[in-house]
């Protein structure tokens, strides 16, 4: 193995080759959205459909940010769908049957999720039982427990206050006129803030001499993201404003992207997935980190469970079936590696939206669930084949 000679500045081709995955995924999402926008005759980006797109996929995004950390750490969690259903059922019991106040129920539900995740994480981290097995067991156990506490029945309806979690929109403090002014301020404010942060980071990289993204790429990527946010906000603000669950999602994505990239705990998770032995010999308490990662996943699954039951307006024994597969697929489409150590939160979110846009677009076109499954499977396969061939080339 020889040293790579110092690259000349602005080596665009080399940069593309090294970062093809990150651009590829964003590019794929743009292509897929453009495709469905055209074939559905413009329905995809109608404000009402865009709103639906967020409402229908929020639970996947919420769980994908946690699953990304689990997969980066070199593990997997198959139990998230069942845990979401179980916590949804618990919440139904507490709200409908016991009449507990809703904020308290939300807190208790999240704690329950964290405990469930923690129990599974305990066996995985400290007993070294493969996560596939522990969470497969968890998937069965919590599905069964859901059926048991619901006695096979649905519980509902929920009070309006709880439904707002999923189907509500942020209030407009500036009056009821359209467009929704607060939504515009938040959405456009976020777009400006992201742009500013990116420019600041770029400046720092340049000052340290480590900016290797060609300027044209940097400019194009950020212009695209900025425009997308501005236009999306405009569309949503002209309908009913930003959905509450969109806000939850946006905050979580920002928070987890920050955790994974900028905190010591994030670093530790990546190091464990990248080389568990080296991490351990560097003094990283791998057991504790893995345990926390699973506890966190349980908490996010619980939040997803609340969101889903609020949207369905009932807790049902069938809730959350197959969620785990959608979530895991989103993370892998988003570029995470099965071997661990590789992946980004943003990639996972984009992966979730690729799946979501395809579901939504194909449903609008009236394509049957049979074809939808086949196509989603092929997209997942294509994304991973792309990864593998890319890796073997380099």
């Amino acid at each position, binding site marked *: 193995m020889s*040293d*790579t000679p110092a690259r000349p500045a602005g080596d665009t081709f080399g940069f593309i080759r090294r970062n093809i995955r990150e651009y590829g995924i964003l590019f794929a999402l743009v292509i897929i959205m453009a495709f469905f926008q055209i074939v559905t005759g413009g329905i995809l980006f109608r404000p009402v459909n865009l709103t639906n797109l967020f409402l229908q996929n929020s639970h996947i995004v919420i769980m994908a940010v946690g699953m990304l950390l689990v997969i980066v750490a070199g593990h997997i969690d198959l139990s998230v769908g069942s845990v979401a259903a179980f916590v949804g059922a618990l919440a139904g019991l507490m709200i409908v049957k016991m009449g507990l106040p809703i904020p308290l129920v939300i807190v208790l539900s999240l704690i329950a999720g964290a405990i469930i995740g923690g129990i599974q994480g305990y066996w995985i981290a400290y007993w070294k039982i493969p996560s596939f097995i522990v969470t497969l067991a968890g998937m069965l156990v919590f599905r069964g427990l859901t059926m048991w506490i619901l006695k096979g029945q649905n519980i509902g309806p929920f009070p309006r206050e709880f439904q707002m979690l999923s189907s509500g929109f942020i209030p407009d403090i500036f009056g009821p006129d359209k467009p929704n002014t607060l939504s515009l301020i938040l959405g456009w404010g976020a777009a400006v803030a992201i742009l500013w942060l990116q420019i600041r980071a770029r400046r720092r990289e340049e000052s340290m001499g480590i900016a290797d993204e060609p300027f044209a790429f940097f400019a194009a990527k950020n212009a695209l993201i900025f425009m997308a946010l501005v236009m999306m906000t405009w569309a949503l603000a002209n309908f009913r404003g930003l959905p509450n669950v969109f806000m939850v999602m946006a905050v979580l994505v920002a928070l987890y992207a920050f955790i994974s990239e900028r905190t010591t705990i994030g*670093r530790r998770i990546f190091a464990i997935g990248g080389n568990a032995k*080296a991490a351990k010999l560097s003094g990283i308490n791998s057991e504790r980190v893995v345990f926390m990662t699973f506890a966190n996943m349980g908490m996010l699954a619980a939040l997803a469970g609340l969101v889903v039951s609020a949207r369905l307006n009932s807790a049902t024994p069938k809730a959350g079936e197959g969620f785990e597969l959608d979530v895991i697929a989103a993370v892998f489409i988003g570029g995470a590696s099965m071997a661990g150590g590789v992946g980004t939160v943003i990639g996972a979110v984009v992966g979730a939206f690729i799946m979501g846009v395809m579901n939504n677009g194909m449903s609008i076109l009236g394509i049957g669930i049979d074809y939808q499954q086949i196509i989603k499977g092929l997209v997942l396969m294509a994304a991973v084949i792309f990864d593998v061939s890319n890796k073997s080339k380099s």
Partner: protein
Amino acid sequence: MDAILEMRGITKEFPGVKALDNVNMTVRRGEIRALVGENGAGKSTLMKVLSGVYPHGSYDGEILYNGKPMAFRGIHDSEAQGIVIIHQELALVPQMSIAENIFLGNEIATRGVINRHETNHRTAELLAKVGLRESPETRVGELGMGKQQLVEIAKALSKKVDLLILDEPTSSLNEHDSDALLRLLASFREQGMTAILISHKLNEISQVCDSLTVLRDGATVAHHDGMVPESRIIKDMVGRSMDDRYPPRDPQIGEVVMQVRDWTVEDPADSERLLVKGASFELHRGEVLGIAGLMGAGRTELAMSIFGRSMGKYRSGQVTIGGQPVDLSTVPKAIKAGMAYVTEDRKSLGLVLIDSIRRNIPLANLPGVATRGIVDRHREGRIGNDFRQRMNIRSSSIEQETVNLSGGNQQKVVLSKWLFAGPEILILDEPTRGIDVGAKYEIYTMIRDLAAQGKSIIVISSEMPELLGITDRILVMNEGRLVGELPTEEATQEKIMSIIISSGHDLTETNVTPEEIEAETAHV
């Protein structure tokens, strides 16, 4: 002379390295020939050429077997001719039975259906030959290392074998099992089999071999068609001139910093086998302490078990640092006590290869680049650039993935990682293995500078000239024991080797029986 094998003028080059340079070796029919040399002398490469792992055409020179030139394209070709090699790492599937392992890939079957009766019958015959009294259906994982080694030999015998090659067959066996294996080898010779034995243990070689070939730096330096005194073998093995260069230094050795007493570690898989046996030593401020020994002597085990019990199973022993007993039972505790361990296996134990230089450096001290858990990338980048410059890490930038660095630069990243953790005591395990001469000199200079700053350094190395060139004092380790200590100015390669050899003799002469080993292990 009836030669079964003649290897003539074998030269094998890897990119940038001549691993074998015009090597000749002749093996007479019916003898056990020893192949000896220091680590990296080219013994394994030579055997890979012979067995076809490196196919014909990828090397120069010729192989005559039973007088006919051979052109092996793979291991199948050499096995078809009756040349069978048993590698140092056993290739057995622990979950499968002895019989299944022996006939793995070579099953006794009719149209894909295995004949279990015949398989077991043949296995029982083979087990009788190697003197292993076990049922053919016993799972291999339930056997000790010695018995597994016998299964491996039985597996070799299941093929037509005229020339058996054993690569360090006793390196993971206890004394009793080693003796049994050597006796078995001698009995095969009675039955007319020829063997090549690669070993570091010269006493074993004297015990069973008829002749020997010595390799050094990829060249044959001596052939002896009969046994010669071990002192002569040692001279042949290490007789290289001190052409490596070492930075001059002026040691300032201070008070005792660390004291290790009666450190004993057992093999987690076999509690009767001790990896480290009652090691005691002291380390001073500003001192560079070398630990010499052959491969498998227990040096890495000693170092890694002290550093957070990262290897083996702790049995007994204490460590004091600065006069105070310290708890080093986990890696974080060892780091907190001021220790650092730079591994010999930087790829699998030292680096996160898929990560950049910048992200690898703070790994042992993440709080050092973070404020309340949030990584300050500015500070991290500055530190990365700092180390890149100071350690002269040759890379395009600190963003380069460590997998793409050369061995020497990878090692500098690992060293940077540990220096950033701010240790007082550094253990460097084979710090220059597999890196080029220029980078070696840089690493020697760093070691010297660290010692001059008052750090205490332990260097484990299989390259004796290196130990003689950079250390102040040398401990000699053999078979899990510290068997000698000498100031570097009085040390020579011959002295160190003879300490190792005579310590091996002590064990054989006192005839440690398995009962005694058990008694030794029982009282703790």
